[in-house]
């Protein structure tokens, strides 16, 4: 009797799981099986079952293509820019906020700097375009009024990486402080008391008490960042790409879209996507292993 009611209960639980399970199977695992078209000459009318198998032809073509090195360089440079110029900023900003004693001021600044995280990339791109355009944008008008030449930031290959990195800094630095502030909130105030007793200055307190409290968080986030090194932010780059800056702006993700859906080379672009996914997976796994070796918990 007891067993029957238990099975009934369990049945209902599995029934509740069903819609979600269906979602994961249809929209996550079916596309994973779909990557086999990277090894076919996929024809929409023949479908996966009847398209001819071609082995590694598309991968071969991709690695031989001069585009490959362009994409590799563009993706890598944007990732390095992000790591060098964006990554340290939330840490610095969180440390600065942590030093603020006036609670109201701290809340006020926090409230403001979290806002851009919730703004869509289209709006961010729109703001960038309207501010930087040579036709009445505030930056170029300011340059002109100073007697300098106008700069076509939006079409220039020289400014593209700076633009992308600056957008990321403006949008995500504030939000990035949250995780560090949470770690800093756990610091025992007695440590500061003790440091002051020993005559430590504010800088020394910052360096010897505050900073060690977030060191593990920094290492963890750095490792996470390495794991998603090739994820350059598709929407952001896609929106800033144009005929003027394509040579420095095209990355693996945007290339998949332009070759795959705009030029209908489904198999070739899937091969490009598979290459990127596999490299990313290897990066994530090795980053996680690295985290564990450093005595951290690891991410998964």
């Amino acid at each position, binding site marked *: 009797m007891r067993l029957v009611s238990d099975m009934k*209960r*369990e049945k*209902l*639980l599995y029934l*509740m*799981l069903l*819609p*979600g*399970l269906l*979602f*994961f199977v249809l*929209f*996550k*695992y079916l*596309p*994973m*099986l*779909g990557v086999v*078209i990277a090894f076919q000459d996929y024809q929409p009318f023949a479908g996966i079952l009847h398209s001819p198998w071609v082995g590694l032809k598309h991968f071969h073509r991709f690695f031989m293509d001069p585009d490959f090195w362009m994409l590799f360089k563009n993706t890598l440079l944007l990732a390095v820019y992000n790591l060098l110029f964006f990554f340290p900023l939330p840490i610095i*900003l969180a440390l*600065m906020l942590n030093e*603020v004693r006036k609670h109201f*001021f701290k809340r006020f*600044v926090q*409230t*403001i*700097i979290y*806002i*851009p995280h*919730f*703004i*869509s*990339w*289209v709006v961010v*791109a*729109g*703001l960038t*375009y*309207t501010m930087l355009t040579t036709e*009445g944008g*505030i930056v170029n*008008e300011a340059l*002109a009024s100073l007697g300098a030449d106008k700069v076509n930031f939006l079409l220039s290959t020289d400014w593209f990486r700076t633009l992308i990195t600056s957008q990321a800094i*403006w949008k995500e630095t504030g939000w990035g402080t949250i*995780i560090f502030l*949470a770690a800093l909130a756990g610091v025992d105030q007695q440590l500061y008391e003790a440091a*002051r007793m020993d005559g430590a*200055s*504010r800088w020394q307190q910052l360096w010897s008490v505050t900073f060690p409290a977030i060191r593990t968080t920094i290492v963890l986030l750095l490792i996470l960042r390495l794991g998603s090194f090739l994820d350059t932010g598709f*929407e952001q780059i896609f929106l800033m790409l144009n005929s003027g800056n394509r040579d420095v702006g095209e990355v693996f993700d945007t290339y*998949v879209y332009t070759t*795959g*859906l705009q030029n209908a080379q*489904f198999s070739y*672009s*899937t091969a490009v*996507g598979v290459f990127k996914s596999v490299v990313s*997976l290897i990066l994530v796994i090795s980053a996680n292993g690295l985290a564990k070796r450093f005595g951290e*918990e690891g991410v*998964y």
Partner: protein
Amino acid sequence: MRERTLGSKVFDTANHIVLLIVGIVTVLPFLYVISGSLVSSEELLTKKIVLFPTHISWDAYRYIFATKVIYSSLLNSIFITVVGTLINLLLTTLMAYPLAKRTLRGRNKLMLLIVFTMLFNGGMIPTYLVVKSMGLLDTYWSLWLPSAISAFNLILLRNFFQQLPESLEESAKIDGCNELGILYKIVVPLSLPAMATFALFYAVYYWNSYFTAVLYINKSNLWPIQVWLQQIVLLSAGGFTDANALSEVVVPPESIKYAVIVVAAIPVLLLYPFLQKHFAKGVLLGSVKG
């Protein structure tokens, strides 16, 4: 009382000034587009840079709301956001609840399957082909179904359900409630702050989503506001001016662009105080690990 040395005072002052500058840099672009959308054409002609218009003109907003395109795409965005958020909340909750049961057989294997989707995915083209073969193109189902559950949110909600006291559920069970009843009558009411947070985050996701619409929806009358924003501001498409627009007022094209940006951003800014209330409480952060 703690005594403050001169060095400490200088440190504090410099820190406050830099933080203030960071805050100003953050709001400046918003200020720029808002004032740009409210400036009158006369003032724009005489002055090149206007950060605080002396005379506020609502012509740009009157103009864009008179065009059918902006008006209907705003309605599209609201519809996509409301229905999408409800679908996501329903599916995420229904799945998180059984997964929170430690006695459920196969639970760990299921969790592994879910976590794996965060590490590896089929990518854009195979997903597009699945959506296409299901006949979802040019319907809003193509926006809702492929993103119906965020694996990350699912795990957070499951962790949240797990820390609820089991004794409450036991008592409901004795009262003859089945699992669905327990979820609806006990677990969900107890989790309202967490559910509100997920609702807000899903809503922001749907309101902001742009590329899925570009990918899956070709009919321009179904486009959300974000796609029109890209058309008007980035591609300078003039096609949205139609016969309904007020022809007697002269509105600078720049002001129209600014107004469209403001309109596309404003709902999120209105939701923001609620969002902030919840994430400030640490509902999300506290459960990140676990």
